[in-house]
């Protein structure tokens, strides 16, 4: 397959690993922001192949994991309303909120359906004019343009029974918030690939400028990630911090102008509630006033009540890179993919699920 096999070439991979071993002299700590990178790193066993000088941490870039319980509770409360069809990406179903989950609400007889895109939800609204179809809008800048397009489509076609629960989050502001928290000392960041395909690489410029931290945008194949790590090591060894792209086939420095315009037309920047981090100003998206009639929160009366977290769950500090799943007392014992207590064990890309499935301790 074009664009897969050539980025998995084991010989080239081994050469890159050798180069990283050769160049890396200083002990450094790198964070992959995006959970897609975390999965790829574990799936290909990349951590084991790096020199001891390099420590890799996983960041908060899992859209399901960072969804706060209060927001999950809202989705579940919406599901209990009469004449409502909830549409969602599949992974959200199993995430436990404070008292229930969408999966449980579905088993109780509420109409909750998995869709593969927001556009499917718009079609569903069109086909079910006597129901309200609510799409649970989670994700980062990657998914936001498609949700924006769905709103514009609904507007154009006069579909008034389509709504979204707008929980979108933004990457660069949360990176800044994490760096300002100062809990984790970082030397370099593996910047997200898909998000950067939309926003480009310019929005990360504050990271080398203000924090002296290396930044390289990476793709998701093993060679992409190894090249990214090699470039980060180079920046750190030479103390020349900048934003670079190791994923040229996917990312342009200026990003995708059309997608950005779509997002900007429909959404404005506002605060967002992040699991483990809390409410961060200017780190999320909300619908502009003109599109408020599509906003589920503004059009349905719900009272999800006070939210609470599973006792002992440390997903929050795992998402901040302060702890790893291996630090959690519940990991593997009380919290497993079959009986997850926290979102990082539910999402296929969550750190806990990744550590669990790919055996983090194996070979480390």
């Amino acid at each position, binding site marked *: 397959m074009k664009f897969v096999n050539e980025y998995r070439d084991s010989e080239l991979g081994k050469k890159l690993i050798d180069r990283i071993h050769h160049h890396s002299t200083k002990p450094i700590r790198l964070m992959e922001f995006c959970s897609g990178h975390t999965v790829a790193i574990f799936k290909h066993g990349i951590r084991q192949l790096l020199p001891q000088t390099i420590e890799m941490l996983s960041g908060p870039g899992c859209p399901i994991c960072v969804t706060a319980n209060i927001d999950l509770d809202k989705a579940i409360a919406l599901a209990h309303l009469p004449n409502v069809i909830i549409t969602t990406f599949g992974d959200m179903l199993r995430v436990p909120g404070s008292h229930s989950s969408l999966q449980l609400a579905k088993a109780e007889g509420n109409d909750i359906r998995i869709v593969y*895109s927001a556009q499917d939800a718009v079609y569903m609204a069109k086909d079910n004019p006597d129901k309200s179809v609510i799409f649970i809008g989670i994700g980062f800048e990657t998914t936001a343009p498609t949700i924006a397009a769905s709103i514009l489509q609904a507007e154009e076609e006069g579909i008034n029974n389509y709504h979204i629960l707008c929980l979108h989050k933004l990457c660069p502001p949360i990176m800044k918030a994490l760096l300002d928290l100062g809990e984790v000392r970082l030397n370099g960041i593996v910047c997200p690939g898909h998000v950067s395909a939309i926003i480009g690489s310019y929005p990360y410029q504050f990271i080398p400028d203000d924090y002296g931290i290396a930044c390289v945008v990476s793709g998701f194949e093993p060679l992409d990630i190894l090249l990214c790590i090699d470039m980060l090591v180079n920046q750190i060894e030479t103390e020349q911090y900048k934003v670079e792209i190791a994923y040229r086939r996917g990312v342009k420095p200026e990003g995708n102008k059309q997608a950005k315009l779509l997002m900007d037309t429909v959404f404005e920047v506002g605060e967002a509630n992040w699991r483990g981090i809390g409410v961060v100003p200017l780190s999320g998206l909300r619908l502009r006033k003109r599109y408020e009639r599509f906003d589920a929160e503004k059009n349905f009366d719900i009272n999800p009540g006070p939210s609470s977290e599973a006792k002992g769950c440390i997903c929050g500090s795992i998402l901040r890179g302060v702890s790893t799943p291996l630090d959690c007392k519940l990991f593997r014992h009380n919290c497993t993919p079959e009986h997850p207590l926290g979102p990082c064990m539910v999402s296929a890309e969550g750190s806990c699920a990744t550590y669990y499935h790919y055996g983090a301790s194996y070979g480390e």
Partner: protein
Amino acid sequence: MENRVLLAHGSGGKLSHDLIAKSFVSTLGNPILNKLDDSAVFELSGRLAFTTDSFIVSPIFFPGGDIGKLAVCGTVNDLAMSGATPLYLSLSFIIEEGLPIDELEKIVSSIYQAADEAGVKIVTGDTKVVNQGSADKLFINTSGVGIVPPEVNISAANAIPGDNIILSGNLGNHGIAVLSQREGLKFQVPIPSDCAPLNKMVAEILETSANIHCLRDPTRGGASTTLNDFAEQSQVGIRIEEEKIPVHKAVLAACELLGFDPLYIANEGKLVAVVSPADADKVLAKIRQNQYGTEAAIIGEVVNKHPGQVVMKTSLGASRIVDVLVGELLPRIC
């Protein structure tokens, strides 16, 4: 008026009788079935293997097969994986009212073809019709019996360190072919489902080697689940190599797109065999001679380390655990 299955077709009365005679017995008939008694009566001697499986795949027609072919191959393969020679099958339909009769007859015809290829007979059956919405078009249950030759001893608990692991061909074709037809996700894959009866392949390798320890068809849960079952039940470790696992590039591409791992995708015409190292090459050669085994490969071995665990050497040379599938990756795939 288009000819459709009505509730009355399941009533046991005249319409039922006509449906059975015209749509089922005319195609599937044989001396045992034709008697239409309450039970099929036949002679058997030796060690019996007996299995049952229900089929709820959606959509009922998919590239490379349909629910009927699947219902025969699934049960034939379950018998074959115990080392049994499959002989007789039962066939039970639960039909949603409104199913076009020509679709039903098309499915019966592929049941006939699959049974004919596998050399098994449908000897008894049942038909129920339910209200619209109480089933989704058509559900099928098949049960099957076969005879296990006295010298054959195959079980997931029989793997021993040193054994080679043979996979009979490309992974994931069935799951991806079915998924490609789903509403909301239609995409073109140039490869059909691998749905096929494997009893002849099994008979050929059992004739070739007396040292086949485990056999299983990696259906739901995929190859990872099968390998984990072997490791767990035999209390051995299993090591496989990523670079040796055959996957069609179109399946790989679809998996990349959808975030799936081919190791977890269902197959309906593949087997995993655990074989003594001395016999592995000749068993592999035999599988490759079979029309359903041309892409077969030795993908790993049984080790006496990490009992109960499957570990894969990645193409970069690192190692990682291959876990069992948790939850449901793709609903209603078979």
